[in-house]
């Protein structure tokens, strides 16, 4: 079969890390590793008594919620007290759409949010990679209405490619995995361009010599684009050197039955995508707002949202810890991936946040952020903003985008970057 049909066997994939990939496509100009941004979202608030940190550097102390981050804590910032736009508080209906857009979505039947930060980055930076961004989810989106008459679209989408279009999240690990290597749209485009090239062959045979120069111009251009697409897909599969262990088996088709397995596979895929530079932007929605996730493996039979109303209780404490553990798993994995003088984590910014503080109240955003974006951020700190005058979440977005090379005059509800980061 053609060189494009690859990768469907178990364990057949061999992804080249960023550096090798860069060399393979002759991108010598790329001297420094790329910067990446990932956002992990979970909903319905946290268990506050355990969600704390104190001090910086060697004196950094973590609350029990962050136990799983202990070993990498010097690469993490614990940012407390940031806020949404003033009125995206309370209730469950709109926080997901608010958190990376920094705006208040519109109520009622007409959907209107804003382009989210990850998609701003994807639109500006995404052209260099196979996928402009990777948008994954572990829970199905919901589309009805909340009692506050906000669409539930807002509760189940953090990524928005336009004010009216949430980006559909990929739920299936197997398909997410495939998309890294042959994004479905580029695969479709290759098939289409093959068809067009066949047609051009027919046309060329029929035209005069002078006419053919014009047709040839088109043929050459189409062929070049087709080959570019093919090459992007082939990156990482044609070398089976196997000298290191960056292999990941293609996940089985279908959906894992339990959320722990599901979320872990999604983290693996994000890590692989960053390591192999298939994309530099990822969002992973671990739960919706008003989540119906269940955690039988934690000995819990009720759903996430119900537990969130008992946020003071042990059950919700264990759920909060569970999601931080998934985040810690991703962070640890990225930190184990060598890249240049550091690790992939060092060249990334990996954020975990929740739109509520406790179930129905959002005075501040629970948020941690790992990786220094190639030294753009100091890490290993506790950053307290609760009593700061300016403490908008949008300002943090603006700062991160700036450090990634996308400097905007304004974003969401702010024109200022966050001070002190």
């Amino acid at each position, binding site marked *: 079969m053609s060189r494009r049909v690859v990768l469907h066997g178990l364990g057949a994939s061999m992804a080249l890390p960023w550096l090798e990939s860069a060399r393979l496509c002759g991108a010598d100009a790329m001297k420094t590793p790329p910067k990446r941004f990932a956002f992990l979202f979970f909903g319905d608030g946290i268990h506050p008594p355990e969600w704390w940190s104190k001090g910086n550097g060697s004196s950094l102390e973590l609350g029990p919620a962050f136990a799983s981050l202990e070993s990498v804590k010097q690469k993490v910032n614990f940012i407390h007290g940031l806020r949404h736009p003033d009125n995206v508080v309370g209730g469950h209906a709109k926080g997901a759409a608010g958190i990376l857009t920094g705006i208040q979505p519109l*109520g*009622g*039947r*007409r*959907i209107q949010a804003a382009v989210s930060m990850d998609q701003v980055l994807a639109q500006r930076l995404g052209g260099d990679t196979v996928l402009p961004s990777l948008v994954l989810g572990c*829970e*199905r*989106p*919901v*589309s*009805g*209405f*909340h*009692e506050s*008459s906000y669409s*539930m*679209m807002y509760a189940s989408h953090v990524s928005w490619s336009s004010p*009216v*279009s*949430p*980006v*559909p999240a990929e*739920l299936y690990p197997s398909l997410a995995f495939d998309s890294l290597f042959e994004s*479905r*749209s580029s*695969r*479709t*485009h290759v*098939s*289409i*361009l093959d*068809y*067009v090239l066949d*047609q*051009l062959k027919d*046309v060329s045979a*029929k*035209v005069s010599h*002078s*006419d053919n120069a*014009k*047709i040839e*111009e*088109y043929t*050459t*251009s*189409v062929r*070049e*684009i087709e080959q570019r697409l093919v090459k992007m897909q082939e990156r990482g599969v044609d070398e089976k050197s196997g000298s290191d262990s960056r292999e990941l088996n293609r996940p089985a088709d*279908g*959906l894992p039955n339990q959320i722990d397995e599901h979320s872990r596979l999604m983290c693996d895929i994000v890590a692989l995508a960053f390591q192999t530079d298939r994309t530099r932007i990822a969002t992973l929605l671990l739960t919706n707002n*008003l*989540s*119906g996730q*269940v955690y039988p493996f934690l000995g819990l*039979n*009720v*759903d996430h*949202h*119900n537990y969130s109303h008992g946020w003071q209780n042990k059950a919700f404490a264990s759920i909060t810890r569970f999601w931080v553990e998934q985040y810690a798993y991703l962070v640890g994995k990225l930190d184990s991936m060598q890249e240049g003088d550091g690790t992939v984590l060092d060249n990334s910014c990996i954020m975990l946040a929740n739109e509520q503080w406790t179930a129905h109240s959002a005075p501040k955003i629970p948020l941690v952020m790992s990786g220094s974006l190639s030294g753009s951020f100091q890490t290993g700190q506790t950053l307290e903003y609760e009593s700061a005058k300016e403490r908008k979440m949008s300002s943090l977005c603006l700062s991160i985008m700036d450090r990634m090379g996308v400097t905007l005059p304004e974003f969401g509800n702010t024109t200022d970057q966050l001070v002190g980061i």
Partner: protein
Amino acid sequence: MLSIPRFILLAQAFIMCSSVSSATADEYVDSVLPYVQKYCVECHNSEVHKGELDLTRYAGSTDVTASFRRWNNIIEFVRNGEMPPEKAKQPSINESNAVVESVDRILLAEAVKHAGDPGIVLPRRLSHTEYDTAIRALTGADIRPTKDFPADPAGGEGFDNTGEALGTSPNLVRKYLSAAQLVADHLVLQPGGISFAPFPVTSYNERKKLTELAIIDFYEDHSVDIVQYLEAAWRYRYRQQELTIEQWALKRGLSGKYLSLVWQTLSASSSHAGFVKELGDVWEAVPAPVNDMSRPTEFRDLHNIVAFGQRVLCAPEPSLIKANAGNWPIQHLDFRAKTAAARDKFDRSSLKNETLLNVIKVAAPGNEVEAENLSVFIRVDPAFADGDNYVLVKRPLFSLATILPRNEDDEKTHHKVQSLRSILDRSHPELVKTLGFGVHPAGGEIDPESFVVKAPTVVEIPLTGGMQSELSGKHLLMPCQLDHEHSREGSVFVQHSVREPGQNRFAGNVEHLIYGDSDTAMSLADSSAVFCHAFPNRFFYVDNVRGLAAGFHLVEGFFRDDQPLTQKVLTDSENAELDRLWQQLDFVTQSAETLIRGFVWFERSEREILHDKRFNFLRSEDPQLVEEGLLTRFEKLYLDKMGIKRVGDTLETESPDQKYEMIHGFFEQIRDGLQRQHDSMEQAEERALADIERLAGRAFRRTLRPGEWQSLLSLYRKLRDDGQTVEASLRGVLIAVLMSPEFCYHRNTRPDGNGIYPLTDNDLASRLSFFLWSSVPDEELLAAAAAGKLRSADGLVAQTRRMLNDSRIDSFAREFLGQWLRYRDFLAKDPIHAAAFPGYTNELREAMAEEPVRLATYLIRTDQSVTDLLSSDMTFVNGALAKHYGGTLEQQYRMVVAGNGDQGWHPVTGLHAAGRGGLSGMAVILTKNSAGERTSPVKRGFWAVHHLLGQHFPPPPADVPELPTTEEGAMTTIRELLAAHVADAQCAMCHLHFDSLGLAMEGFDPIGRVRTADRAGRPINNEVELPNGKTAGGISGLIEYIMQHRREDFLRTLCRRFLGYALGRSVNLSDQPLLMAMEEALQENEFRFSVMFELVVCSPQFRKQRGRGFQTTTR
């Protein structure tokens, strides 16, 4: 009427007789070269080449014909005596005339020799405009995918439709691919095939928006305004013509079906009992109409009583959105179904025997609703029962709330209740007695804070000023109940009012109190049912916030609640359309699947029903959930969980009850929906493929060749096999069609030989369509081509005329005129510093750019004179432009709008009186040829002389001095500064040709507004001396000059540009005879646009092509 063949004959005759005087061996060497060497080469040689002209390059006649444009310009200078210049050695007039004649002869001889040669028309990609227009024609959606592409370069005669100019690069192909993807993202698979949404449909939100809005729009278009029906029925009663009620409805734009029902109900109303009898009395009382407009007061009574009946007799409408978390979706659907079914039903059990009157909110002291001497009234009238009608007013009170207190805490703390009696005891003790607090008129004691009234009666309760501060902000609440003990069979109307007693028995706040289980109510049943059948409480339900949502908390689901509309109002075909829209919504949003997935999530997270280990296998994301196996397993467990005993392991129950029916019915509904989705998909796929095949044919401008569809189909299969959905695969095929050279390239099918051959029918149709419409041929043109009709001049002319009179000819107006006269890029390259001109908005700019298109489109469609482009006294304006132009133009526009209410574009006349006329007085031309914050007489004049009239000038030297950037910053007027510049003879040589024309336009400021002073306040002088030595003032003088002295220049330029645009190539010497024929034909046919179009499309240049083996040397 113009006869085309005659013109072709004429052109041919011209060619024939010209051929007779053919040139000698080499006339250039014999007659021209000596002159050139003697008078010209001193300045125009390979070293000096003034004006970038090197005459030593031309050795013989073939060099001259090869550079015929250049030579046309050269002899123009000699003819006008401008060359050789004054300071150089001067030839005699005869010498110069002889040389001019020789060059003319050389050129003409060559022209005639190859007259009609189709020339080289290279294959080329579509221009961006053509691409966008073609996409609009193919999809019906105005997507404009090339909006952000880099501008197309121009070639040939200055147009972007030439093969030389339009190249392709990998980057452009990448953009094409994105553009095609964008178009494909608008494709939506529907049960009936494919359609294109006005926006990209890439997420659920857009799918829903698209299909839900279509239904809501349908409902709005078919909504029922009862007043209109009542009026129609009333007028029908007094009709003068013999018309059926259906005909009557049709005349008034109403539903015949529903008007019949209203008419029959009203006509028969007086023979009924109860409420309908009352309705009949009111109906009978409406007098005959006096005119077509006014309605008597009795008519208002009729409307009131109908509205009253709808409110009190039809089943009351409960709140249909249940936003609380515990609301059981299955039960909610059942509730919605019951509500929907009861909209036109009378239900005794919903009759009320009590009501809470919120009589007044006491205003704060000093408020204008001063309570001094203000009274409130309770009026109680007997309704449908004789005998004793007592109404108990149960503890009336003042309260901060509008509901009654539920407990003592409410009463004291929150509502701060004071009973009416406690107030009256202090303020009006006598009234306490009159009202009879505490005693029943029929005897016996009642609660001391309540009283009973007997109908008919009017109770007045004065609220004196003294009470105001105490009661400020409180509501007077009066709970009224039909006396249970004494008036079980009673029936009363209760009404409250302020200042004076209520008058109208059927006003909006009148309540009817009756016991639903009484005999009185029973006796009302029949007639009330008749009423409700005709006048339902609603015809359809669309929630203000949630649209067509089923209305349970959080779960997405749609609910159709429109039975009265479908049964009483819509025709069969309208119902079919509405059904189709609902089917479309279900299909496009996958509503059954969406509902069951949402249901699983909701029952777990909001209702906790699935908090049970047995349900742990169930995930709302699971693809298997919509398969029968898992769905049945779920239903069984769900029934068990709900305590329903099943028969063995089946879905049946031992004892069917309402709950079982509801649950099982819900799952059955899901199964039906999933099955329908599956069936619709099969049908949709088949139809969609047929649609795509048709679309491909139109995109390729011909019927597909054998095998062509097969290869598209195999691409489709490949994408499907690759796991793509039907819709995504269709999108893929569409992208392939749009990327195909058969769509995005113009290419003619060429015969092998070395001669000249006709274009194929399809190629000719395509050429014609892209010429006139910048788009693919429509079905009619393709059909004409297929029938061979384009092979005859008559057939070709017939199609051309049809297309000229079509609104799509605006593409020609926009593209040809815009590119020829250099304003098409106005919006992208506006020279104006907008900040310096308040009110210079985008809306205005867009209107400015649109104005010439509107005028030219009108001129072409109505086949006016091409000289109207120069001198038209009429134009088209919209609101923004009218305001910009001001004066009588604005007044005219306002009057038209006031007359017809249409805020769009309208024709206005009187341009000449306003100092304007034709294109040169248009804001867009004046503005495009300005410079930042000042006018530019040079640019304006050059525009007129060079672009409009075709006069050529050598490029300016590199060291021309700059004019100041603003008028404020200049020492004197631009006019005077220019005069100084032109004092230099070398500058004057060119400037004297155009400056004066530009200065004539000085009466208009940089953005084309009339002005009498420049921006520094210096008075404007637009009196000029024209190149012919005459003086003229303003644009009208300019127009007069062109019409009288330069019209031929204009026509020559127009014809040449026109031909270049039509052919998509540079004009060749061999086109000269055709150009001359065009000019001549225009002169003879009142300069009508159609003359040019018809002559060109019938010319061999347009209809033919060179064969593949054509050698230029062998011609």
